[in-house]
């Protein structure tokens, strides 16, 4: 389960060492925008050593490599992939060919290292107009792709519009990405809310993203993680309802009844599936133990 993803600069040891305690379901050690060109080599080795020795735990580890139009991306993969990060985040994906290129390169490393194929997954960062229009083809182009992530800062530059807090200018792109990802059965993550101090604004933005169908949201500040987790977790009422649904289905099975209703509403397959998803998230968040 992945609600929140948190960026951590790849060349700052003091931040990396505590990256796993900030509450994010997933941390993204960044080799791209957070690292200047002159320090790419340094960050790459630091992140590789982090994966190899530090044993960050309790969260998923994703590495954002450099885009395929640079000379850094394959060097990044050479160092990183053998140490089995959960996923690689590939920025500036314009189309399926970018993903294919990277996926094949990863496959080569996996083979060389005797790793099982498709051990290392890919999260595609969609932040160009071309990427948005190709979203469906990107989402479904490769088995490694497990999620898409919308990056609105670069995207609005490409759109030649002003990025606003309200985000009217990216509504189409958000919906397009959600639709493409859901159509291909992969997760989809919303763009970071960039005003670090504005916690109320973060909640509003995250609730809107959830309403559109996003799986979760990426953050550039640890201070936003709690809010994102809260918004993208099932509510108490949702969890209670899901338990009721599954309980009543169990009972119906025992009694040999076919049609089941709860509070006057027919319980059909989509409702049962939704309830199962909620219970799965509940287990992932609360460990399946009793809680209030």
């Amino acid at each position, binding site marked *: 389960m992945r609600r929140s993803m948190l960026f951590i600069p790849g060349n700052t040891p003091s931040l990396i060492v*505590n990256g796993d*305690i*900030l509450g994010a379901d997933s941390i993204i050690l960044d080799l791209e925008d957070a690292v200047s060109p002159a320090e790419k080599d340094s960050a790459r080795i630091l992140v590789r050593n982090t994966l190899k020795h530090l*044993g960050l735990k309790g969260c998923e580890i994703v590495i954002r490599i450099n885009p395929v139009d640079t000379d850094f991306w394959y060097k990044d993969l050479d160092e990183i992939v053998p140490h089995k990060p959960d996923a690689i985040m590939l920025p500036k994906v314009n189309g399926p060919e970018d993903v294919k290129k990277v996926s094949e390169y990863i496959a080569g490393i996996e083979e060389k290292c005797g790793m099982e194929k498709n051990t290392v997954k890919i999260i595609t960062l969609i932040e160009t107009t071309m990427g948005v229009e190709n979203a469906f083809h990107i989402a479904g182009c490769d088995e490694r792709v497990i999620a898409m992530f919308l990056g609105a800062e670069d995207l609005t530059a490409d759109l030649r519009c002003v990025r606003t807090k309200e985000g009217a200018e990216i509504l189409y792109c958000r919906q397009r990405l959600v639709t493409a990802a859901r159509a291909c059965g992969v997760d989809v993550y919303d763009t970071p809310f960039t005003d670090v101090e504005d916690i109320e604004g973060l909640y509003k933005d995250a609730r809107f993203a959830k309403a559109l169908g996003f799986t979760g949201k990426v953050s550039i500040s640890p201070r936003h993680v709690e809010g994102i987790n809260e918004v993208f977790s099932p509510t108490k009422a949702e969890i209670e309802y899901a338990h009721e649904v599954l309980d009543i289905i169990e009972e119906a099975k025992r009694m040999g009844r076919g049609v089941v209703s709860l509070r006057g509403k027919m319980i059909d397959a989509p409702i049962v599936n939704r309830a199962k998803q909620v219970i799965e998230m509940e287990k992932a968040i609360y460990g399946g*133990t009793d809680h209030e």
Partner: protein
Amino acid sequence: MSKLIGSIREAIEACGLKDGMTISFHHHMRNGDYVLNMVLDEIAKMGIKNITVNASSVFDTHAPIIDHIKNGVVTGLECNYMGAKVGKAISEGVMENPVIFRSHGGRPSDMEKGTSHIDVAFVAAPTADNRGNMTGKYGKSACGSMGYAFADAYNADKVVCITDNLVEYPVVGFSIPEVYVDHVVVVDKIGEPSGIVSGTTKITKDPVGLKMAQYAAKVVKASGLLKDGFSFQTGAGGATLAAAKYIKEMMLEDNIKGSFGMGGITKYMVEMLNEGCFKALIDVQCFDLDAVESIKNNPNHMEVSASQYAGVNGSAVNSLDVVLLGATQVDLDFNVNVHTDSNGYIMGGSGGHADTAAGSKLAIIIAPLVRARLPLIVDRVTCITTPGHTVDVVVTQRGIAVNPNRPELKEKLVKAGLPVVEIDELKAIAEKITGVPKPIKLDESKVVAKVLYRDGTVIDTIKKVVTE
């Protein structure tokens, strides 16, 4: 009858200060204090030697005392806290006699018991009249509470009030009354009020600090103590202040009407008072100028003496529900060190640490599990400031350890879903990140400081560091 006297020198002469005597100072001007240095310079010029200085705290601004130690003017030093500058010199063995460390409660109690005798107290007073009534609430050098100075004034043989704001008799709303005062000296400036705000008195923005603060606030809630009548103290560390903020939010949300907030008071505690979280603040010293402003204007913000705050024979600490404290080291028996750094150099002291831990129902230590490759948890602390049996919970960003003598508390925290681990597990988690540190080498044959627990017994000694 006016007690005005022309100069510090004349006051020293009038008090009959002689070789071998003990003089005292309070630290309400904190790192902005001028008085301790002024008096010692004068004593040195007069050729008096072999003086013991009992200052409630020694800050970096008091570094000139090092030269007075080297010259034999000062041969004894007693305090409750010592900044890193003087601490380094002491740790390296600049003084023959060991420093005597006490706690904020132990110091006045020892004076009252007669085990700590003060010949002459020099009391910096932001406002005074010519007969020695004084207060810290007004004047250009206002410091707010004068809590630590009461014991000196009550117990010293001679008391000299040193002020830079002489007002017409009587001082309205005095803290220390004239009956205890022998002489009043007017000087240009007793200190720099901006220096009062020394150390960390702002809420941290560090995500690790905030994480620990959240855990600490949840510990307080899970303990069951957060209800009407709640009383609370926090130090001035960034993470403990952040915890106070979370606790305030919980109190406001659940409409909890607390009893009192205590300690060194910061603007965050003032805000809690003003927003109805507490009936009163019990203020032994002000940590920032917002607190100074509040104690002047709000009758519910009360000045108390160190003795009433933390004295050994029954004091406000015994009515305290929760205290949040820091640590440089914690050991497997929950003993806490805030006297020395990891290399054995003195850079702190108990202050009210040992007193509040002993008095409160719940003493919570908040500290990062690793600081620059040094694990917080060690087998045995370099110096015991606060004994482990008075410490209830250690909160770090990677887990919370509960003292085995509090099984019912542990159960509550586990039930609340908090990440409770054993203290030796915490040590192992830290050492997995840092590696196992080699023990530091200290000169076991040379004691540079004795640490007195609040009851006056020696709880530990600090050894000389080994310099290459």
